[in-house]
């Protein structure tokens, strides 16, 4: 007598909804165990990790500050993954978005006035798209794997930044530190605090979150209500059906990569023109990779991405907090992220399969031929 996985007649709708919740609960339970194993009072550590970071205005603004780029990139990736275009290089596309925005800032912030920031936003998305188009070309025209190409290009992008901040774009007054000049006010997103939102005084939350807030319904609309969004989904669900219907596989790859690249590029702008205020070589938040988990956690649904982004941002913050308060190792954030992803993938199984007891008289041996 044991247990077995039996295939369901139809994928369970309830489970599609419950799977992420199950994964979260399991992660939290294992988390309690980890805290205990590390010699902490599990509930106190739990509090420090999940509740304390967002218990004041400062905490909430930090949460949103991290969630915003995660959400933005996650939206782009969700659309791309739905089309089976596995863009793993969003981090690099984000870097290039930051690079292009920086290029505008340091060269034109003194002459373009109020037009600087909008130009940077545009440049950022162009930068991300340009970087993504390298991968798109390799996949669409040369049939290379976009997973490998986009991932490797991330390291190239990182080196591009190093070259620029050690070289031509280095701040001449920076004592040879690898960073650019600080951006002026007209090249930076205004803080909410400075716009009269008093309860956000002293926080770093800035207007770039508006880009994300606009992107959420836009992404949903594109995926669910437009024909190109439909074509991308079909290409991911059943590529042979998409070919039969006449949808261009090439166009789908380009569209998916460019959308992902643009979103990542915008996230890059919101970082360099936001809390950082410059380009430097320590900027490597890994948002492009964490956004992969965000998109997966949201089951590639544009409306689930913001919720998933908030959760992942909380994991970042929690890790920082317990580092400071409890001297727990920095890796703890990534442990939680990894656990979450693993449990999520495991819970996915329950959408298509059911757990049940093996009945003693029954042993289904795999049939050796197709049914009549």
């Amino acid at each position, binding site marked *: 007598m044991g247990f077995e996985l039996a295939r369901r007649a139809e994928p369970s709708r309830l489970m599609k909804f419950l799977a992420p919740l199950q994964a979260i609960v399991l992660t939290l339970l294992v988390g309690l165990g980890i805290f205990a194993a590390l010699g902490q009072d599990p509930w106190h550590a739990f509090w420090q990790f999940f509740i304390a970071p967002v218990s004041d205005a400062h905490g909430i603004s930090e949460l949103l500050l991290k969630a915003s780029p995660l959400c933005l990139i996650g939206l782009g990736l969700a659309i791309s993954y739905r089309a089976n275009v596995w863009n793993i290089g969003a981090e690099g596309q984000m870097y290039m978005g930051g690079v292009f925005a920086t290029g505008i800032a340091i060269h034109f912030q003194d002459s373009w006035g109020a037009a600087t920031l909008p130009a940077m936003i545009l440049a950022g998305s162009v930068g991300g798209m340009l970087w993504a188009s390298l991968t798109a070309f390799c996949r669409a025209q040369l049939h290379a794997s976009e997973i490998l190409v986009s991932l490797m290009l991330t390291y190239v992008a990182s080196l591009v930044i190093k070259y620029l901040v050690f070289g031509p774009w280095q701040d001449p007054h920076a004592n040879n530190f690898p960073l650019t000049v600080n951006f002026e006010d007209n090249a930076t997103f205004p803080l909410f605090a400075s716009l009269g939102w008093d309860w956000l005084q002293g926080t770093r939350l800035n207007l770039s979150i508006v880009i994300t807030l606009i992107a959420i319904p836009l992404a949903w609309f594109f995926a669910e*209500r437009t024909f190109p969004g439909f074509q991308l989904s079909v290409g991911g669900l059943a590529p042979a*059906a998409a070919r*039969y*219907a006449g949808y*261009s596989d090439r166009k789908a790859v380009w569209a998916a990569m460019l959308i992902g690249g643009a979103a990542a590029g915008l996230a890059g702008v919101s970082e360099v023109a936001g809390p950082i205020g410059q380009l430097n070589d320590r900027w490597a938040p890994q948002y492009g990779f964490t956004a992969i988990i965000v998109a997966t956690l949201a089951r590639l649904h544009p409306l689930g991405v913001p919720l998933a982004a908030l959760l992942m941002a909380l994991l970042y913050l929690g890790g920082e907090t317990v580092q400071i308060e409890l001297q727990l190792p920095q890796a703890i954030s990534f442990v939680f992220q990894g656990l979450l992803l693993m449990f999520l993938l495991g819970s996915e199984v329950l959408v298509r399969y059911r757990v049940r007891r093996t009945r003693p008289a029954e*042993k289904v*041996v*795999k049939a050796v031929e197709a*049914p*009549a």
Partner: protein
Amino acid sequence: MNNMTDRPLLLRLTGIAKSYAALRALDGVDLDVRAGEIHAVLGENGAGKSTLMKVIYGAVQPDAGRIEWEGAPVSIDAPTAARARGIAMVFQHFALFESSTVVENVALALPEREPLKKLAERITEVSARYGLPVNPNQYVHRLSVGERQRVEIVRCLLQAPRLLIMDEPTSVLTPQAVDQLFETLRRLAAEGTAIIYVSHKLEEIRRLCDRATIIRQGKVVGHTDPRRETEGRLAELMIGRTFPHTERRSKHEGDVALEVAGLDVPADGPFGTALKAISFRVHAGEVLGIAGISGNGQAELLAALLGTSRSQAQAVWLNGSPVGNLGAARRRAMGLAFVPEERLGVGAVPELSLVQNALLTAYQKGMVRRGLIQRGAAGAYAERCIREYDVRCAGPGAPAGSLSGGNLQKFIVGREIEQKPRVIVIGQPTWGVDVAATALIRQRIIDLAAGGVGVLVVSEDLGEILEICDRVAVLAGGRISPARDVHATNSEEIGRWMAGGFPEAPAVSSQAAA
């Protein structure tokens, strides 16, 4: 003649039941098989025949019921146990490795290791004895489908089976090969082997079998001697009501709607089929059928017609315009509709609803405006297809994967026909489809042609082609025969052509030259 009951009872099934989730595949089935008889198990697609055979062969365990072998109750846990008792099965879809030789494939199935040379001799001996010529050292990928089936049968015969189960054996054979197969089976039966012949082809069962057990929706609805029944009566037993007939309309031929001129397509990989100098014409208002066994270039031809594989512009013509180098979307825009050979994963996306699947190919019918999906129009279109084509489903929002084969095929055919095309190409219109849906689809095809559409049907069901087509050509080994009027030929001649014995088609000058 009552020698039937003199023969010893080999296999007796009593009250066999098997359910899969909510579906009762088998519901209290009884079956008796005696040594030396050829026993038909008759039922339409989805009736439960396959499941029953899996129970006998040990691939599936029944939820209830008793199996008796030679009078003693047994439990058949796995196919190895079945084979040990002398039960052998020739499957509908062969399990052979194409890149190995015949003797290597046979060796894989045998329980004990045997030197290949000795095995090759045994193969030659058995194949000669039963009239199934097979060269043991030939690579399987070089064999025709009929020859591959012979390998499967020889593989079973080498184990001296007491009971041989044949699952839909003739769907891949030319008429001549079918005759040869029947000879072999009769010889085996005369030697005392029991044969279970699973099929839905009434004419063959009446020719070959001594007894028939008829299954409908998992239950046995009758036992009979098929030689004493008419095809009509057997059909009624099989489907539970009178068999529908298709009505032919008189033919009015118009201009050439679809033309293929000298199409050459290189083989796609070592196991593909190259198309050589394919030429034919389909006129508006006629149904041209392309007959032939699967694997002779049908898939390649269909891809070249749809546009998923591109060729030279002058090789394919739609309504007088060269389209050979255009993709599927452009050809659809020019009035081409297409029903693919495979339903799930190609013709329809199983996870999407019927409304979304309507949008899949009918998007040019007012469902998309400036890039936005018009959900009302798509829903109305889907509802129309469901209504007009008698699609049994839980509504237009039901996922395509929840429909039965027949209903999904009706939906797909309806979706393509309702686009009001000028040319329609249909691959395997009624493969795996129940009888009622088959009749509806065939009638709609005939009606479509009567309405002036040029219809091309590619089918491996020769009976279907003869029933609904005006003219027929045969595709064999990547070459096409001349097209003949259906009334001017018969299944004998077509059978010969399927084996490749047809004259060169006269060179057809394309419309550009005309």
